[in-house]
């Protein structure tokens, strides 16, 4: 059958016959190959979320063990080396293996649904990004489990990370694993960027996309630009350790501060990358429970982008104590102050949305609303670090530990748990239990603040971070006991959450397509959505396609149940980057085990490199090459190559 280069899409109505046809085209085949080969963004998204939460649990247990050690002065539960690996692995896990992947998971799951698309722009790349993330997590945790976890903190300063001071395999695991994780992040970011610009439903111009899309898009642009910095830094570290180069050791003319620059050029934007999408969740979720559109959409969207732009310019505020000239300190200090304003836009917008709306207090609402307060606490403590003279006292004390937990737990974990309460019914078709939800929220909220508010004080009283123990009579004893107790209450809250998820997955109340009366497209499809998401391609007329009738602000109404059928195969629609004008019918790839094989090959290659095993490395390299060739081979079905000429 010859495929014409151009076709006018047929417009039609949603209907059972169409759905049956699309189902046959889009559904993943059962069995192991289907499991390993699926490219369905919803399946991949859920895998991301589940994996990230398992790692969150691991990182949490590590923290609980540390809190036993620190519950009192001079305790001897852990040796210094054990403690150092625990705190480093905890940081690595939470920052790299939980906080970012969990957001990728939600974005993967939600984006095509929010954007009215049938899948991401590059479904196989999407699968690759998950499998490589899993491979990196396995690799990094193998190191930890064999006693060679990272032991120099998550930001891993040299020269302590060099072979001279750190002769074990710890740093080799960390370096190679982080390079692998960088691949996952980068391909994921590329996929998000192209999806945001090319895969939106017609009519969804750039000023109509949900804020969460703004958040993840901004984060992805940043990741694409800065992940290479940290991958390069870890690559240089590995070369210094194993091949005798001199990037970082001063004896060979290297520069220890090069590490810090490369790391924080990445690290500071990354910190925003792990909160901006979660802030987007609040911006999109909170209004649903306040029964009014978000206040100041355009300002919040601009604020999101502005945060990141400023975020590129403040990496040096992690390096105030490294002996920089006063002029440069002043510049980076001022830039760090400036970053308050875009963050404040989001905070004011959320508060105004509650104030001017009619809030319905649900568990999801509680998590989203509490984010505001936790963000403020994390924000003002962050503001203090922007002031160089204050920072020179605060930095590397528990004040910073408190600050970073208020930002990461407050602006990542709390919104994420809220997002689970909000979107769980979409993902599973069932609601989470609200009564258990309240217990869940209040236990987490009280436990978290009990654990982390006093850390500000131990910090102000001078307790340095990254100490495996501390002497008595420093004024920290009672507070530390309180912190340890709080951390166990917090953990109990997280446990309640996991119990709620486990129980409600099968036993929860049936949700229906739209349990909350939501405004955006994901609520227009069934719960859980069919593999093709939308039977017809919707056309969008506003920011709130499902609230148009209620708000009655414009004449135009979005068309949800009538639109392009695109049922000639596994087809999706590509639109123009700004105005979302229909541009192209895209042939979507079938399921493929290529991404899985590629990730396996990379993992084998990495173990080969780690242990200097040439044959193992070569085997891994061969698998990688074969998987890539099979993947990239131009396929007629995807219209990447010409039809054979027929006479």
């Amino acid at each position: 059958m010859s495929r014409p280069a151009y076709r006018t899409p047929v417009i039609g109505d949603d209907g059972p016959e169409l759905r049956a046809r699309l189902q046959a085209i889009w559904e993943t085949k059962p069995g192991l190959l289907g499991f390993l080969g699926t490219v369905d963004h919803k399946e991949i998204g859920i895998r991301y979320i589940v994996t990230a939460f398992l790692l969150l649990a691991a990182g949490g247990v590590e923290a609980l063990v540390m809190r036993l050690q620190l519950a009192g002065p001079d305790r001897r539960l852990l040796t210094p080396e054990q403690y150092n690996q625990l705190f480093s692995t905890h940081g690595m896990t939470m920052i790299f293996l939980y906080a970012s992947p969990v957001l990728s998971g939600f974005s993967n799951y939600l984006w095509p649904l929010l954007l009215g698309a049938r899948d991401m722009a590059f479904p196989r790349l999407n699968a690759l990004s998950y499998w490589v993330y899993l491979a990196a997590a396995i690799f990094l945790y193998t190191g930890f489990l064999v006693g060679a976890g990272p032991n120099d903190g998550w930001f891993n300063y040299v020269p302590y990370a060099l072979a001279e001071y750190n002769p074990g395999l710890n740093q080799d695991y960390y370096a190679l694993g982080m390079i692998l994780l960088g691949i996952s992040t980068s391909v994921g970011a590329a996929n998000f960027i192209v999806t945001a610009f090319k895969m939106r439903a017609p009519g969804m111009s750039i000023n109509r996309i949900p804020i969460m899309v703004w958040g993840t898009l901004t984060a992805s642009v940043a990741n694409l630009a800065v992940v290479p910095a940290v991958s390069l830094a870890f690559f240089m570290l590995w070369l210094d350790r194993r091949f005798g180069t001199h990037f970082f050791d001063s004896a060979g003319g290297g520069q220890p501060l090069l590490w810090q620059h490369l790391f924080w050029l990445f690290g500071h934007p990354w910190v925003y990358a792990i909160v901006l999408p979660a802030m987007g969740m609040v911006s999109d979720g909170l209004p649903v429970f306040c029964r009014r559109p978000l206040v100041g959409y355009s300002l919040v969207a601009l604020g999101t982008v502005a945060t990141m732009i400023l975020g590129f310019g403040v990496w040096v505020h992690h390096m105030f104590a490294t002996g920089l000239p006063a002029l440069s300190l002043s510049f980076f200090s001022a830039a760090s102050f400036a970053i308050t304003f875009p963050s404040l836009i989001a905070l004011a917008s959320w508060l105004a949305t509650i104030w001017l709306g009619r809030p319905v207090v649900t568990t999801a609402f509680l998590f989203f609303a509490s984010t505001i307060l936790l963000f403020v606490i994390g924000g003002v403590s962050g503001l203090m670090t922007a002031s160089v003279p204050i920072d020179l006292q605060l930095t590397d004390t528990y004040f910073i530990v408190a600050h970073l937990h208020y930002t990461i737990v407050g602006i990542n974990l709390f919104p994420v748990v809220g997002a689970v309460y909000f979107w769980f019914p979409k993902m599973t078709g069932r609601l989470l239990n609200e009564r258990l939800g309240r217990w869940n929220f209040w236990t987490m909220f009280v436990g978290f603040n009990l654990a982390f508010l006093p850390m500000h004080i131990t910090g102000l009283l001078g307790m340095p971070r990254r100490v495996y123990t501390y002497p008595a009579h420093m004024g920290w004893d009672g507070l530390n006991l309180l912190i340890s107790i709080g951390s166990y209450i917090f953990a109990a809250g997280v446990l309640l959450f996991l119990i709620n998820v486990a129980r409600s997955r099968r036993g929860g109340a049936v949700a229906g397509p739209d349990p909350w009366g939501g405004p955006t497209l994901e609520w227009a499809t069934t719960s859980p959505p069919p593999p093709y998401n939308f039977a017809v391609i919707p056309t969008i007329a506003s920011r709130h396609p499902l609230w148009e009738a209620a708000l009655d602000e414009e004449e135009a109404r979005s068309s949800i149940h009538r639109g392009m059928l695109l049922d000639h195969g596994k087809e999706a629609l590509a639109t123009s980057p700004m105005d979302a004008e229909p541009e192209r019918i895209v042939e979507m790839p079938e399921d493929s085990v290529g991404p899985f094989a590629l990730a396996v090959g990379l993992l084998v290659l990495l173990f080969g490199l780690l242990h200097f095993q040439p044959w193992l490395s070569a085997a891994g390299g061969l698998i990688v090459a074969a998987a890539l060739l099979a993947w990239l081979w131009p396929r007629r079905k995807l219209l990447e190559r010409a039809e054979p000429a027929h006479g």
Partner: protein
Amino acid sequence: MAELVCADPGPLPVGPVGRSGMGWWGVATLIASEAALFGFLIFAYFYVGATAQPGWLLEPAPKLFPALPNTLLLLASSGAAWWGEKGVERGRRHQAVAGLLGAFVMGAVFAGVQAYEWSVKTYGMGESSYASLYYVTTGLHMAHVLVGLVILLTLAAWTAAGFFSQVRWIPVSAGILYWHFVDVVWLFVFATYYLTPYLGFPQ
């Protein structure tokens, strides 16, 4: 009365047509990320150079032969690849294969000359931070050249086998876009290591 808006476009391209398609976007984002990588490598050079002791530069006056002609050769290979792409676009298979193979040969000669440059250096990558930066930067570029060569050769073979028509040839455009990137980024590497010492950096 509210009015339903329903997009009802005319004929749309089905799949990638000509130079445009999703694959082009994919390679463009990949290139953006790779460009950042080289940006950080060059940042590392200037940062370490700016903070180093005098005498850091192992080659205060780098020899421009054969580096400069080699650079011009690499640029010419981009031209050949572009000419080959035009061949695909116009349905001239011989021109297409010749262009791609020509780019491949020029790229391979570039790689050979670069390997020769390494072999006559009096220092290895463990000599100093300058040496480490030089070898790793040019080495990472070399890795990209080798990947590009594999791509060019594969594209030439696919083109010769008649995979592409005047309508469908996105893999060719995407692959050649990558090759252009490999060539352009070399200009930055070349300027950094071979030209800035003449401008007096560092010291």
